[in-house]
């Protein structure tokens, strides 16, 4: 966590000086800083830093709509990935000490909007689409080499979406959403009849497949897309259902590196509020609470990771981003709202930006 003082120190005098007094004052009060891709009110896209008090601290323009961000555990450098089928990722220093740098995807590849750094901060990984072959890959970038792309691994599936590095620092977990897209047809989904979603565990150093988990046979239209770890290193995931909209399959579950995968049973009404669509999954700082969101259903759920029970349901129009804060979860919305739940002390407030699907705690 970046405490206020730590943030000001990291930000450096130049950055603090660039803040208008009102914002600097807001920063005085702020404890936590969050990052998200946004759409600006005046139009245009950016990656933004926002305090939990709702103060817009800084923003870095993006050429088009962004998606998730990831941070170097060593330097704190941030990377905002383009939303699929975008071809850029923008590296920036949240402290504002260096100029942003744009990474362009390799020809024949585009980004899916998610990625992760290696524990030593030397490599950046991103989920990408080898679209001519409908094959998911993890692009590997050398940070010291100016984010030069030095190779790729297979994700062992089509349409990978979120990827995370497990707490062991050695294993990637990939949500292979299973949906084929090709930039010739924009975001059109080309294989709904034959989609084959999976959770894949991959050796970070060799790219070898450690294990791959699929849901039961009747659930092949349940696209596994977003994930977070609980305190036991179980991988909680949220799905989006592409089958008959009249069906309401369970959407939330967890998988383990040991090979277990299961969906939890959400109560019918709660499940209905998710509208067959989970937009993000996040965990509280202690890993005891799992947040899942549905912007379609205007609902943020806080689940007890130990029991799968619903701790709290927050109604938030267009709410999608979730991140752990000091005590619970903070949620953000496409309408510009922030709101805490499950023990968070953050009151409901409005920020003059439109938050994209993912919210990340900085530091």
């Amino acid at each position, binding site marked *: 966590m970046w405490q206020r003082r730590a943030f000001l120190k990291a930000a450096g005098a130049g950055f603090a000086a660039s803040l208008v007094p009102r914002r600097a004052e807001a920063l005085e009060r702020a404890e936590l800083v969050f990052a998200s891709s946004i759409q600006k009110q005046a139009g245009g896209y950016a990656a933004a830093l926002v305090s939990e008090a709702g103060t817009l601290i800084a923003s870095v323009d993006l050429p088009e709509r962004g998606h998730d961000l990831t941070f170097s555990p060593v330097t704190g450098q941030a990377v905002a990935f383009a939303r699929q089928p975008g071809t850029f990722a923008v590296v920036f220093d949240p402290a504002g000490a260096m100029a942003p740098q744009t990474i362009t995807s390799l020809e024949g590849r585009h980004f899916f909007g998610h990625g992760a750094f290696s524990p030593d901060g030397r490599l950046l990984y991103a989920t990408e689409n080898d679209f001519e072959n409908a094959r998911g890959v993890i692009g590997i970038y050398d940070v010291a080499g100016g984010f030069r792309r030095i190779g790729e691994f297979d994700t062992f599936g089509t349409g990978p979406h979120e990827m995370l590095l497990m707490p062991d620092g050695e294993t990637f977990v990939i949500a292979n959403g299973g949906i084929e897209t090709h930039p010739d047809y924009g*975001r059109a989904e080309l294989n709904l009849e034959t989609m084959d979603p999976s959770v894949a565990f991959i050796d970070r150093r060799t790219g070898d497949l450690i294990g791959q988990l699929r849901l039961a046979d009747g659930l092949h239209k349940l696209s596994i897309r977003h994930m977070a770890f609980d305190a036991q290193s179980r991988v909680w995931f949220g799905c989006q259902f592409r089958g008959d909209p009249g069906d309401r399959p369970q959407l939330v579950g967890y998988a383990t590196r040991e090979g277990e995968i299961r969906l939890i049973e959400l109560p019918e009404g709660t499940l209905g509020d998710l509208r067959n*669509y989970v937009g993000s999954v996040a965990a509280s700082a202690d890993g005891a609470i799992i947040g899942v969101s549905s912007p379609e259903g205007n609902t943020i759920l806080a689940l007890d990771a130990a029991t799968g029970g619903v701790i709290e349901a927050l109604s938030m129009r267009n709410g999608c981003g979730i991140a752990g804060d000091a005590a619970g979860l903070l949620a953000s919305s496409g309408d510009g709202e922030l709101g805490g739940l499950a023990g968070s002390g953050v009151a409901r407030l409005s920020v003059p930006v439109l938050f*994209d699907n993912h919210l990340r705690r900085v530091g």
Partner: protein
Amino acid sequence: MRVWLALLIGLLATPAFAQLHPTARTVITQAVEEVIRPGFAGFAAETERLAARQAELCAGPSADALAVVRGQFGAVVQAWSGIEVYRFGPLMTDNRTERILFWPDRKGIALRQVQAILATEDETATDPATLYGKSVAVQGLGALEFVLFGTGAEALGTEQGAFRCRYGSAIAALLSSTAAEMSSEWADPAGISARLIRPSQSDPDYRDNAEVLQELVGVMAHGLEMIRDQRILPFLGRGGAEPKPRSALFWRSNQTMPSILANFTALRALLVNSDIWEYAPTEQFWIGEQAMAEFDSVAIYGSGVTGTVEEAMADPAQVDQVANIVISSQVIDKLVGEDLPAALGLSVGFSSLDGD
């Protein structure tokens, strides 16, 4: 006297307001009753005619009878282009969207499977009941287009085309029965119409008017994206790439541009005939007015595209007209996908309508 005065004040307080601003219920009712329901009824009627003409062709093959069926295929595509944007309710059950039109088909799956049926004279493809159990790619408009217009289609005018004709008949019959089912579902006063017109807290999808209006605005926003990404750009080419006329939908039947223009016409009809744009505050009427003007521009650009897609893409002037349609679609997208929902107090749909 006091009563009269109160009435007079009441009248003065709402000058023409009620007429200018429809209620949400009125907007939704008009969308259902004046736009969507007639659209689905039209598709049912055109596919029923198609099935009848196709059966006549098989009973008495001739070049004239083939021409009649081909003409009717165009009418069916027009009707379909008017309703395919309603991707909720009846179109979304039982894979109907894919059964009626398997597209995009980047790998040409449909062509391979249809050609295999024709080559092996697979009799199970000539009975609608067994055809229904086959791949969705061989039972819809794309398959029928190849039967009627693809390589070897001329045989349909003679006895040599008997198998091909019966396969075409089975497709037309399936289309007709699916279209009839959807039309009756939309016509059912207790069905999807009631759910939209009278949303309730117990409904899984439509808890209130705002969620229904969101659905209707979503139809326009998603429809525009579909036209651009799946229908125009694949053959126009992205970012200055060479046009690929054979990547166009319905190029064999020369229905590419007519179907695209019918898509736009359908979206304009939803905007205008539902009065949804007038549900916005008066000072926001410009949104609907500009969108209508832009839709009119699309029609003008479209009239400048003549002949087949192949011919059009070989003519720089016509390529420009198609490119102009893409730009107009982006303008309309901004108007109805961002400005209108904001004016209606709906979620701008930044996260939810086109999430990831």
